C-alpha cells in the first residue's frame, strides 16, 4: 500500500493531460457560444444597456464619469466572441499554466454579459442603468467574507484537518460580533470576540478529530448544525426581546487619503472597512508563513505526510491544533466581517457562504492566492444573484446561486486542471 502502490499513476502522460485541457477549452467555448446566442442574439436588436461608474454612496467623489450606453446585442456578442477566442487559444496552444485563471476570466466575462443582458432597456434611451462601481463594491464585500472563510480552510487543510465548520464559525462570529458591537459600539472588540468564538469552535473540532480521531467531516457538519440551532435559540431568547443587543451597526469605511479618490479602483480597494484591510494583511501573512517560513514548512509536511514529519521531530498533533484554532479565529473574523457589512444578525443569514468559501478553497487549489481569485469570482456571482432581482429577468436567482457550486463540481471532477488536496487532508494521525 501507501507510497509504493500509489506511485504508478503520478506521472502525467501527455495524452490525458491534453484531453483535460481540451475539455476545459470546450467548456469555455460552450459558455461563449451560449453568451453569443442567448444573451447577444436573444436580446432585441434595438435594446441598449447603460453603464454608470460614479458610486451612489460616494457623493463627495471628486470625479464623475459619465454613463456609457452600449447596444446590448453587440456587446454581448463581442464578449461571447472573446470567450470563444480564449477557448480557442487554450484548445490550440495548450498552455501549461494558468488554465484555471483563463477559465476564471471567462466566468467573470460571462457574469458581465449576463448583467448587460439582464439590465437591457428596449430602446436607445435607457430606463435603468448598471452601476459598475456599485457592483464591484458590493461584490467586494461578499468576496472579503469568502476570503476570510477560504483562508481559514487553507490554514486547517494544509495541516491535514478538513474544516467543514467554517459556516458555523461564520455564524458564531456574526452572532457574538453583533452583540459586542451593539453594546460597546466598537468593532475592535467585536472582532476580538468573533475571533475567539471561531477559535473555540476550531478547538472543539481539533479536540474531537485529533484527540478522539472522530471523522472530521461529521464533526464539522455537527458543529454547523449545532451553531445554527444555538444561534436561532439565542436569537429568540436574547436578541428578539432585547433589540439593543442587535442594533445592526455597519463598520465605518476608512478611506485612505488620495488612493480612495481614484476612479472605480478607489472605492473598491481604498474606501473599505477595517475588515477589508485586515483581510489583505491576513492573506499576505498566511502566504508568507505557509511558503517562506520554517513553521509553514512544518505545516505543509504535516498535511502531506505526517509520519515523515514526526520522524524528524515535528509534533504533528500540536501543529494541527495550532492551525485549526488559528483557522477558526480567521473564520470567526469572517463572521464579524459579514455582520459588519450586512447588518443586524438574523437567523440563517450567512446562508451557506461558509460552504461557498470551502468551494473557493478547492477552486483556489489550497493556496491563499488561489483562494483570493476564486473568492472574487464567487463573490461576484453571489452578489449578482441578489442584485439581479432588481432587474426583471426570467432567470431564478437560485440558478445563479448554483454557479459557485457548479464551478466547484467541475473543478473537483478534474475538468479544470489538476487539483490535489494535501495528501493527509482529513486523515486522522495515529502515533504508533
Amino acid at each position, binding site marked *: *500500500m*501507501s*507510497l*509504493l*502502490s*500509489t*506511485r*504508478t*499513476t*503520478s*506521472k*502525467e*502522460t501527455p*495524452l*490525458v493531460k491534453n484531453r483535460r485541457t481540451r475539455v476545459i477549452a470546450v467548456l469555455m467555448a460552450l459558455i461563449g457560444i451560449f453568451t453569443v446566442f442567448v444573451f447577444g442574439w436573444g436580446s432585441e436588436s434595438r435594446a441598449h444597456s447603460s453603464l454608470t461608474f460614479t458610486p451612489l454612496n460616494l457623493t463627495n467623489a471628486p470625479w464623475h464619469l459619465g454613463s456609457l450606453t452600449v447596444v446590448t446585442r453587440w456587446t454581448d456578442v463581442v464578449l461571447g466572441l472573446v470567450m470563444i477566442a480564449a477557448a480557442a487559444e487554450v484548445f490550440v496552444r495548450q498552455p501549461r499554466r494558468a488554465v484555471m485563471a483563463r477559465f476564471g476570466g471567462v466566468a467573470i466575462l460571462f457574469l458581465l454579459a449576463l448583467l448587460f443582458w439582464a439590465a437591457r432597456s428596449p430602446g436607445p434611451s435607457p430606463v435603468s442603468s448598471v452601476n459598475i462601481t456599485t457592483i464591484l463594491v458590493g461584490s467586494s464585500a461578499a468576496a472579503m467574507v469568502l476570503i476570510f472563510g477560504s483562508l481559514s480552510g487553507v490554514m486547517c487543510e494544509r495541516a491535514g484537518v478538513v474544516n467543514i465548520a467554517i459556516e458555523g464559525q461564520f455564524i458564531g462570529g456574526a452572532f457574538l460580533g453583533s452583540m459586542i458591537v451593539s453594546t460597546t459600539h466598537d468593532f475592535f472588540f467585536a472582532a476580538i470576540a468573533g475571533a475567539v468564538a471561531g477559535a473555540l469552535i476550531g478547538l472543539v473540532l481539533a479536540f474531537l478529530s485529533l484527540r478522539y480521531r472522530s471523522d472530521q467531516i461529521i464533526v464539522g457538519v455537527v458543529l454547523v448544525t449545532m451553531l445554527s440551532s444555538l444561534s436561532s435559540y439565542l436569537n429568540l431568547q436574547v436578541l428578539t426581546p432585547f433589540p439593543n443587543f442587535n442594533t445592526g451597526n455597519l463598520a465605518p469605511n476608512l478611506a485612505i487619503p488620495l488612493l480612495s479618490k481614484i476612479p472605480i479602483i478607489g472605492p473598491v480597494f481604498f474606501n473599505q472597512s477595517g475588515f477589508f484591510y485586515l483581510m489583505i494583511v491576513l492573506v499576505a501573512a498566511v502566504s*508568507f508563513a505557509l511558503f*517562506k*517560513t*520554517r*513553521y509553514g*514548512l*512544518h505545516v*505543509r*509536511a504535516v498535511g*502531506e*505526510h505526517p*509520519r*515523515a*514529519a514526526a*520522524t*524528524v*521531530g*515535528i509534533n504533528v498533533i500540536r501543529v494541527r491544533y495550532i492551525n485549526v484554532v488559528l483557522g477558526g479565529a480567521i473564520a470567526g473574523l469572517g463572521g464579524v466581517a459579514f455582520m459588519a457589512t450586512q447588518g443586524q444578525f438574523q437567523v440563517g443569514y450567512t446562508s451557506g457562504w461558509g460552504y461557498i468559501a470551502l468551494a473557493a478553497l478547492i477552486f483556489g487549489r489550497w493556496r491563499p492566492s488561489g483562494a483570493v481569485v476564486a473568492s472574487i469570482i464567487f463573490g461576484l456571482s453571489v452578489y449578482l444573484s441578489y442584485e439581479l432581482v432588481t432587474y426583471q429577468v426570467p432567470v431564478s436567482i437560485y440558478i445563479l446561486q448554483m454557479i459557485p457550486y457548479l464551478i466547484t463540481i467541475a473543478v473537483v471532477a*478534474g475538468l479544470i486542471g489538476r487539483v*490535489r488536496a494535501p*495528501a493527509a487532508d482529513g486523515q486522522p494521525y495515529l502515533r504508533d
Partner: protein
Amino acid sequence: MQLELRGITKRFGSFTANDQISLKVEPGQIHSLLGENGAGKSTLMNVLFGLLRPDEGEILIDGVVAPIADSGEAVRRGIGMVHQHFMLVPVFSVTENVVLGFEPTKSFDRVDYRRATEDIERLSQQFHLDVDPDAIVENLPVGLQQRVEILKALSHDAELLILDEPTAVLTPQEIDSLMAIMRSLAAAGKSILFITHKLKEVKAVADVITVIRQGHVVGTAEPSASESELASMMVGRNVQLTVEKSPFNPGAEVLEVRDLVVLGDRGLVAVDGVSIDVRAGEVMALAGVQGNGQTEFVEALVGMRPVLSGTITLHGRDITNLTPRQALDAGLGHIPEDRQRDGLVLSMSVADNLVLNTPRRAPFARHGTRDLAAVNDNAVRLVHDFDIRTTSIQGPASSLSGGNQQKVIVARELSRPLEFLIASQPTRGLDVGSIEYVHRQIIEHRNHGNGSLIVSSELDEVLALGDRIAVMYEGKISGVVDPSVSRESIGLLMTGHTSETASV
C-alpha cells in the same frame, strides 16, 4: 562511530520480540543483520532509533552507555535511519525534504533555502549521490528517492546509518549503485547497519553478518559463507532455495491478451497496449519494478478495473470487461497483490474466507441459504491439506500470521478447478518456509498442465518460477525473455531498455 548493543530484550506482552540481542558495529564497517520477516529485525531497529524502549539491555556508543529515549535523541547521537517506506513528502523538493525539522533560518523564521541547497550539493558531491536539490521528490525514480533519504540522514551528521530493507523497491541496477554508495560511505568512516533477508545482497556488500531468528542471535557469519548455509541459519532448517520443476512442455495457448489499455486511479494510462500469450503448462512471470502498471494489468484481467481498449481471451472466449463474479466463473483464480485488502475479509472466519469465491454455489449453498456444515467440512479439509496454522477455523482471518493468511488464499484459489491462475506478488512479506510452500503449489498447478501468470517484483522469484519472463516498464512490455538470460539483461528491461538493446 562504534555501536554496541548489549543484551537487548524487548517484550510485547507474553511475546518476546528481541531476546538478549548483542552485536557490535565498528566504524567504517557494513554490518548486515539477516533474518526472516518477523525475526525481530524491525523491533531491534526501532529500539535503536528510539521508537521503542528496550525492557532490558543497553546501547553503547563509542564505548559509553547511551540511552536513546526518542528518535530526536537518536539523531543527535549520530544515528540516521533510512526507512523501508520512505519518510519523504512527495510534493516537496529534495531540499525541503532534507531540511525538514532541521531548517537553517533567517529573520522572521524564514527558511534559508540557499544555504540548505549549498549544503545538500556539497554532501551530494562528497558521497557521489548525484541528487538535484531542486527536484520534486515524487518525480524522482525510487532509487533516487532513497538517496534523498540517505542525504537526509547525512545532513543530520549521522555517523551510523541504518538501512531497513533498502533494496526491496529497487531495480538490479539501482541495487548495484546503492551498494557502491554504501561502500563509499563506509570508506568515509561511516558505520552501516544493513537489514535484509536477501542472501545475495548480504554476500555482496557486508563485512560482518549477524543472523537472527525468532528474536535470538543465532550466530555470525562471514560474507564468504554460502547462500544455503546462510539460509539454513536464518530459517533453522535446511531449505530448498530452488523449486523443482518438471520439464517445460507447453501446450495450446490459454490466455491471450491483445493491445490492452487500462487507466490507473488518476485517469492516466497505466497499461499501454500490452499483448501477452500464456500457454497450457506454462508459468509466465511478469517482472518489473512495482508501479509500472502490473497492478492495473492484473486488475483488468480479473474484472476489477475496466479495460479501455484491447481484448482478453481465455481458451478462445472473449473475457474482456467481465465482472469479477463472471471472471471467477470463467475459471480465473486470483491471488491478489494486497492480501489483506483484496484477498480476505479479515473480520470473517477462516472457514468463510475459504469459500469467499463460491459462497452461493453448491455444495456451500442451496436454495439461497448457506450450508454451514459443508463450509466447515471444506475448511477442515483445506486447513489440513494446505497446512494452514490456525487455532480455530471459526477464528477471524485477522488472527492468522501473514504466511498463513496467504495460505488461506492459495488454498481457496487452487482447491477448485481453474482454467487459469493469476498470482500477484504471491510471496510478499512471507518467510522463507512459506515462500517455499507457495512456490511448490504454483509449480504443481503448472505441472498439471495449467497456465498461470505470476506477477512479482522479486527477481529471484521471477527466475525461479517463470518458464518465460515478460518485463513490464511504464505500462508496456519491454521484452519477453527466457529465464536463462542474465539478471543484468532483465534489469535493463526493467529500466525500459527494449529487448534488442538488452539481449547483448
